[in-house]
């Protein structure tokens, strides 16, 4: 066993003992509004945490391969739906700290979404390429949408799956270069609208907080693609075309994620792909307002909920660094070195805490985003994604 493996196992044992003491007692009444979950990447476990006392409440284990994992919450914020790399979909009871249902619904998955009314959970799959839809009550199967394309009926990997108003799911086909809108507003089979030839290799996407615009990043081209969900007949539109200005892109050691909308000044902040820049876009006309030079290939650009800052982390080999962009001046205002392997950042909904995971050091750090002081540290096993329950009540999250 490697040193890291031994340390991980040891910290898992220690953590197990500690958590047994602090786990949520079934009889205690409490809300879930200050709770959250943290993906523990290498051990395939999930930490349940709360941000009032900044503590860990429970660990849920044996959830599979979390090399890529994401979380959605039920509309009552009682349950977390966890999507693992190995196709595992688990429904976790946050209050009891236990798995209620778990299905392995595909061979290889990348993420998921929960429907507007909370009744459906959709998973985007690489293998077999497509989207599988389940009941959020019991994870019973509801629909399968194979991502077939071309004359041979090949299956495309599916990325950038989000929920949209009108009981719709929107997603992108990486291999096919298509965007599909699946409408589940009527019972039975979904109505699917397909937009073809949107651009090469859409790798991730976001939906604006009002649920109107779906924007996919393209790996194979210099630009982004936009779909107005209020007017599907208008089709897709290319925006920020040629943002790389024809320069040779830098190598990308990890694919960026598109999840960074700042309400302040009504601007959108996006990681550029293959450049060490944040793109700043004004949705009014989809014009480039600025590009902010940053420390490396940005992975996440996370907006503080009050819109005052954007926190940015980076791909390997720069993943020991975080930069804080001041939205008012559009400049990098601070740089932090929290440790090796900063994989994700998450704010509390009113912006007073910023949580970030430091994978290689088995820690989650909590910062005061105003003073940039560290206010607490939690032990976690190779932590990656951090998800607070306020997401339950946000379109696209």
């Amino acid at each position, binding site marked *: 066993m*490697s*040193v*890291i493996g031994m340390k991980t196992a040891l910290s898992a044992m220690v953590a197990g003992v500690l958590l047994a003491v602090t786990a949520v007692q079934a009889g205690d009444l409490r809300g879930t509004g200050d709770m959250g979950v943290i993906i523990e*990447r*290498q051990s395939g476990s999930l930490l349940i945490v709360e941000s009032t006392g900044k503590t860990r409440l429970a660990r849920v284990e044996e959830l599979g*391969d*979390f*090399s*890529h994992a994401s979380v959605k919450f039920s509309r009552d914020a009682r349950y977390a739906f966890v999507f693992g*790399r*190995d196709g595992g979909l688990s429904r976790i009871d946050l209050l009891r700290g236990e798995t209620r249902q778990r299905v392995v619904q595909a*061979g*290889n998955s*990348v993420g998921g979404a929960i429907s507007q009314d909370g009744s459906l959970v959709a998973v985007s799959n*690489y*293998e077999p390429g497509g989207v599988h839809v389940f009941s959020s009550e019991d994870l019973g199967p509801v629909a399968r949408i194979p991502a077939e394309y071309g004359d041979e009926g090949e299956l495309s*990997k599916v*990325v950038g799956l989000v929920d949209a108003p009108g009981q719709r799911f929107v997603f992108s086909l*990486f291999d096919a270069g298509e965007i599909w809108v699946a409408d589940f507003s009527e019972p039975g089979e979904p109505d699917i609208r397909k937009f073809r030839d949107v651009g090469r*290799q859409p*790798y991730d996407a976001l939906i604006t907080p009002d649920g109107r615009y779906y924007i996919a990043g393209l*790996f*194979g081209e210099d630009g982004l693609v936009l779909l107005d969900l209020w007017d599907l007949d208008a089709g897709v539109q290319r925006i920020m075309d040629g943002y790389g200005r024809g320069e040779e892109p830098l*190598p*990308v*050691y*990890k*694919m960026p994620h598109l999840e960074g909308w700042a309400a302040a000044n009504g601007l959108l902040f996006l990681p550029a792909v293959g450049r060490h820049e944040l793109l700043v876009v004004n949705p009014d006309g989809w014009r480039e307002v600025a590009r902010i030079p940053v420390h490396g290939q940005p992975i996440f650009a996370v907006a503080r909920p009050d819109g005052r800052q954007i926190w940015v982390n980076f791909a*390997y*080999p720069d993943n020991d660094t975080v930069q804080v962009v001041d939205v008012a001046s559009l400049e990098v205002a601070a740089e932090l070195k929290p440790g090796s*392997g900063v994989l994700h950042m998450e704010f509390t909904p009113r912006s007073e805490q910023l949580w970030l995971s430091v*994978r*290689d050091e088995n820690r989650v750090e909590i910062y005061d985003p105003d003073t940039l002081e560290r206010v607490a540290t939690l032990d976690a096993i190779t932590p990656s994604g951090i998800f607070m329950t306020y997401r339950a009540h946000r379109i696209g999250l």
Partner: protein
Amino acid sequence: MPDTLGKAFRLAVMFLGLAACFPLTAEIDEERAGELRHLLIQECGSCHGLTMRGGLGPALTPEALEDRHDIGLRAIILHGVPGTPMPGWNWKLSEEEAQWLVDLLREGVE
């Protein structure tokens, strides 16, 4: 085998197009091996999965690599695959280290 001699030998072999039949012998010290394993699992794992069963990038399990030659795999690791998200790692890895990773993948990382 002294390193320079090894390089000359490999070069000759490559010219003959027979490199796949003469795999590199990789001598990697324990500390570097730990770093390489960490790099493989964490960074390569971002796209290929922590268990190398694939993700945005293809699976790199022993079965998936059965029909692939060492020389081709080393070239992909070191120089990337144009037109895909696979970047080259030659700024970080030597040819020997790329081969060490290929050997590890052939054994299986689990």
